């Protein structure tokens, strides 16, 4: 974990309102795991005041600018413009100075090498699933990705997942791409067909709650990546806590989603509280 005072390599709109940003970050990749996140300072001046959390889409290297220099290591994020911070980000260009803190948090546990894996991504929620898919495929797992969105504009990076060797299934609310309907309906069908599987998900909270319910019904293990507002990202402010399973007024259990999470095994969370939470934070971890 490190604070990088660095600059943007590229920032491109890939679908209406969705951007991909590569940020120069030497040495970042060797410590980064699928499901971890960064705290991104949109610009070095204020406002906005607080950093924004973003899931890591991937890390990698670009060729050096000229011979003799080392290749340029980058971290890539994908974000949706939803508020003041992301609106400023959308205007940034190559060479603009930014700061990022990371890699942060606990990512997905992909140590289980056996069997079939289903990833469920809703909109921008597919971001942390890309590195996960890569790791699972490398582990020899059969990976299926179910992507859901409101319209075709919300379905991102399909070909890149397919290039990893992932089988993709698309559903949109309006039927403009893939099958019409909810991604959770697809999940239920897949679980009936492939009962011995493990599910990983990230996306809007109502979708996560529905995925949780389905996995409980089919007794399928589930790991879920949460999106909570954060101030510090390192476990100091205690602003991003979520209720743990068994939370009561008398014996409260609050878990820092930045430090314990952002990925949780779903049985450790209190879903009665989470299901009511409806933040849509546009790519936050």
């Amino acid at each position, binding site marked *: *974990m*490190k*604070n990088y005072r660095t600059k943007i390599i590229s920032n491109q709109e890939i679908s209406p309102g969705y951007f991909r940003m590569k940020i120069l970050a030497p040495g970042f990749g060797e410590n980064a795991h699928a499901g971890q996140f960064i705290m991104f*300072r949109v610009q070095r001046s*204020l*406002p*906005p*005041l*607080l*950093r924004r959390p973003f899931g890591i889409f991937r890390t990698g290297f670009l060729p050096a600018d000229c011979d003799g220099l080392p290749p340029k290591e980058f971290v890539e994020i994908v974000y949706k413009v939803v508020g003041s911070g992301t609106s400023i980000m959308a205007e940034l260009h190559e060479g603009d100075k930014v*700061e990022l*803190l990371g890699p942060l948090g606990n990512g997905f546990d992909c140590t289980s090498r056996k069997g079939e894996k289903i990833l469920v991504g809703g909109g921008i929620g597919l971001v942390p699933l890309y590195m996960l898919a890569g790791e699972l495929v490398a582990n020899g797992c059969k990976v299926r990705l179910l992507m859901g969105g409101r319209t075709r504009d919300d379905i991102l990076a399909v070909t890149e997942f397919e290039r990893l060797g992932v089988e993709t299934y698309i559903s949109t609310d309006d039927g403009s791409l893939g099958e019409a309907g909810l991604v959770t309906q697809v999940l239920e069908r897949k679980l009936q067909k492939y009962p011995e599987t493990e599910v990983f998900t990230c996306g809007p909270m109502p979708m996560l709650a529905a995925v949780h319910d389905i996995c409980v019904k089919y007794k399928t293990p589930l790991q879920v990546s949460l999106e*909570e*507002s*954060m*101030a*510090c990202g*390192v*476990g*100091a*402010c*205690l*602003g*991003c*806590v*979520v*209720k743990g399973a068994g939370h009561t007024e008398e014996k*409260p*259990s*609050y878990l820092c989603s930045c430090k314990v999470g952002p990925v949780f095994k779903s049985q450790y969370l209190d879903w009665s509280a989470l299901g009511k*939470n409806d*933040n849509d934070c546009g790519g936050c971890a």
Partner: protein
Amino acid sequence: MSELKQEIVRRPDMSVEIAGIKLRNPVMPASGTFGYGEEYTPFVDMEKIGAIVTKGLSLKPKAGNPTPRIAETVSGMLNAIGLQNVGIDAFIQHKMPFLRTVNTPVIANFFGNTLEEYGEVAKRLNDIPEIAAGELNISCPNVKQGGIVFGTDPKAASEVVALVRKNLQKPLIVKLTPNVTDITVVARAVEEAGADAIACINTITGMSVDVNTRKPRIANMTGGLSGPAIRPVAVRMVHQVVQTVSVPVIGIGGIVKAMDALEFLIVGAKAVQVGTANFVDPTAMISIIEGIEEFLVEEGIDDIHDLIGSLRL
């Protein structure tokens, strides 16, 4: 030639003394923004800052408030964390081992739900030799019991400070709330009751509404406003308190850069605390310390005490 010149420039003396504790410089974190110190070790050399101030400690662990707990506002943030903390026992067992290894004064911020609890926590702090001082929180706006209830009433403030003063065998800093009509009244009361130093200000009570859902943006409805938005209010109140009491004052409120810290020192704060800025930039305190030093060199000031309270009227 230029190298020679640099050697001749003496580094200014940045050290200050607060309530008998010697600090290598006047910059420390504000309670609740720096965890128990260890969280920031990847970014901050603990032996470069003036002191470490812990998250507020209570007798029993405290779970804190429902979520959402934070919301960003214009140049500020609202929070209602609710003093979530591990409790004094777990603090001693799990957090002190790290703090013991650091050669920097550790100030334990603490609070109670009742008068008795305040007294009990103070006693427990006596058992920890590595704690340099206690910072008494009578100013948290986000909990029903304790905190601000004591801090807004001069009589109650005086009572709790007197009790803690009796129980605590260490220097006592009292942290005040700005949520009063006249902060000098409370400042005078806590000084008379035995405070060795005063820290101010804690957050200003605020509220923000999401117009789409028409719900408060934090679950507690109201929260404490911090960040650059409150700095002018803080500078004004610190100035007032400095003019009122003779004990040292620690200035807090929206410090992000060295220039911000200098404002507080010039109006008479002997030290400053950096809060929300730690979230914005985990290395903020280090930049602030370097910036203050640079300013002193530029102004030809050898000793920071020549800057403190140097407001020109």
